[in-house]
């Protein structure tokens, strides 16, 4: 060849592929998300190990392990859906602080007596539309109002919780539509519907991010907005859609929570924004955008809900829970970094 190789050398392509191909792939950036995710898998297994060690009666007894795992996954379901949406927004270079408020608004709006009058269909429709609509409002504020995402979504957050309180008259609205409440109990192939929903959303999210122009352009937007603009991507509409996705996820989550609590209220989904962001980031999403994986976010959510479950089954007092939790989070991240720490030349402030 008449010129120095700039991507890889012949050596790299042949011999290296064969000999060091795996380790090479492993150590290089393509391996990076997988590495991170493996780290989280390790953490998850470790946590389950702790479970087995502290509560063998549950974690080593088939009849009890199953239900317990299901309950971990069910508790991960709603926040998991929200985190998928959040992941898109963050990868796209934004942030969505409004999710808790949007869930409350969608939940309350879709369970007013009036709405319940329309039956399950009406409730589902309302929840999704309200979620999506509010999400689009976020998007417009950010894309066209030029508001910093943090502020824009903070504003819609307070506004949404307020509106929800207004609508519900600060009452807890119980749901009498059986079809809705059944969402929390229904099972297919022995697996709770809530878990199927989570699985579906994760799968769709993964496809959307990795296999569609929308997903790839989202990465471009968050990674290098100027490059995206010069490539002719219409940044603003795209941004609006991103927040729409997050809003829609909130609508879905609202239904899942409402079904589980057989009720909705203005204060529901407390702290969901923080949990979702934390899960996404622990899952390897870059807070500055341009980088992240759906699988990682899912694992992040699972880590957190497993921790909660461990605390519960071991009857730790709230304050001890918190103290330990802090430690576990740090440990989890360190585990992720450990094996490859040397390779990840990342600036301390990143």
């Amino acid at each position: 060849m008449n010129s120095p190789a700039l991507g890889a050398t012949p050596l790299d392509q042949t011999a290296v592929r064969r000999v060091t191909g795996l380790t090479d792939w492993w150590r290089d950036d393509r391996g990076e998300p997988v590495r991170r995710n493996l780290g989280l898998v390790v953490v998850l297994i470790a946590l389950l190990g702790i479970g087995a060690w502290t509560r063998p009666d549950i974690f080593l007894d088939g009849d009890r392990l199953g239900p317990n795992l299901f309950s971990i996954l069910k508790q991960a379901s709603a926040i998991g859906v929200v985190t998928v949406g959040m992941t898109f927004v963050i990868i796209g270079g934004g942030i969505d602080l409004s999710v808790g408020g949007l869930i409350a608004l969608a939940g309350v709006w879709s369970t007013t007596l009036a709405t319940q009058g329309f039956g399950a269909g009406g409730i589902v429709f309302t929840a999704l539309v309200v979620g999506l609509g509010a999400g689009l409002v976020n998007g417009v504020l950010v894309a066209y109002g030029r508001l910093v995402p943090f502020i824009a979504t903070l504003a819609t957050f307070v506004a949404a919780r307020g509106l929800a309180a207004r609508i519900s008259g600060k009452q807890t609205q119980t749901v009498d539509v059986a079809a809705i409440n059944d969402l929390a109990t229904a099972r297919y192939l022995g697996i709770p519907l809530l878990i199927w929903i989570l699985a579906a959303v994760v799968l769709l999210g993964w496809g959307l991010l990795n296999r569609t122009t929308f997903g790839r352009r989202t990465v471009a937007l968050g990674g290098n907005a100027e490059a995206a603009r010069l490539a002719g991507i219409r940044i603003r509409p795209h941004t609006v859609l991103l927040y729409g996705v997050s809003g829609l996820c909130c609508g879905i989550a609202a239904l899942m929570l409402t079904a589980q609590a057989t009720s909705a209220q203005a204060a529901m989904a407390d702290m969901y924004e923080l949990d979702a962001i934390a899960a996404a980031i622990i899952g390897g999403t870059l807070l500055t955008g341009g980088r992240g994986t759906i699988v990682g976010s899912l694992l992040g959510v699972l880590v957190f809900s497993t921790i909660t479950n461990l605390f519960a089954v071991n009857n730790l007092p709230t304050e001890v829970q918190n103290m330990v939790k802090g430690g576990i989070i740090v440990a989890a991240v360190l585990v992720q970094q450990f094996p490859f720490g040397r390779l990840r030349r990342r600036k301390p402030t990143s």
Partner: protein
Amino acid sequence: ACTSNTPAGNTSVKANAADNAAAGKPVTIGFSAPAADHGWIAAITANAEAQAKLYPEVTLRKVEAGKDAAAQAAALDTLIAAKPDVIVMLPHDGKELNSVGRKAMAAGIPVVNLDRAFPEDLAYRLQIKGDNYGMGVAAGQYVGAQLKATGKTAPVIGEIAGMDELELTQQRSKGFADALATFGFKVANRRAARFTADSGQKEADNLLQALPKLDAVWNHDDDQGIGVLAAIAQSGRKDFLLVGGAGSRKAMETIKADNSVLKATVTYSPSMASSAISLARLLAQGRGMGDLVELQVPKEIILAAETVTKANVDRYLTLGF
């Protein structure tokens, strides 16, 4: 003592209650309670407003308490400046707002404090509290008695508390534990929810996982109880008894229907707000309570925590929030 030999002379008795209903001089009552994040607090405000409407001469000036003690303190400052005849408040935290109570009293405005106690006497003229410790005791005694009756010697008992950072939650748990101890029982697992239905559902679910075998559960707050009941229903477990707290109408109806594990609830009624308004009115008008001999409203009232069961539920339904 008086030297007269007429017997009833020096005993203070009062035959017919002075009619407190009779209208008195116009009264402005300032009112402040935390933002309602759940049913019970919402009921507090609702009751206060309803009660005030009963008295033509009473005008209620509500000031929103905002999101925390600091905000409520600021709100009350403006209220004090407006010099109402009396102030009724439910503080975010008794200790944190104690100083504001004193301020109002010092400004010559009698303070009626609700639910969350002030540490200093100087901070209030009248204090009406639910009995948090007693609430736990009542729940503990009911649970203990029921399980004893079924011959349980080492029953598995769970507890779903309210917001753990509130002192009243601690008092309730203590009462519960103390009462159980008298039966030689103890709490096997305690989860703290946040007075909201979805948190109740979550913690109940956790509790059910933690305790595969279960005899009784006490849930501090009927509002979050909606979620607790949901979780139990979803788990399909019926093998234990559930006792509620605070006493919502929904809970009482469920108890009445007797088609779930919820068999009782111990009251901690937001009706205390209604009473507070009527007594505040009397205070402002310098009148005593009809059935009391004293000429003035007493300094402290602690509502008894009663146990509502299928047997007596009808009497309480009206108090349910």
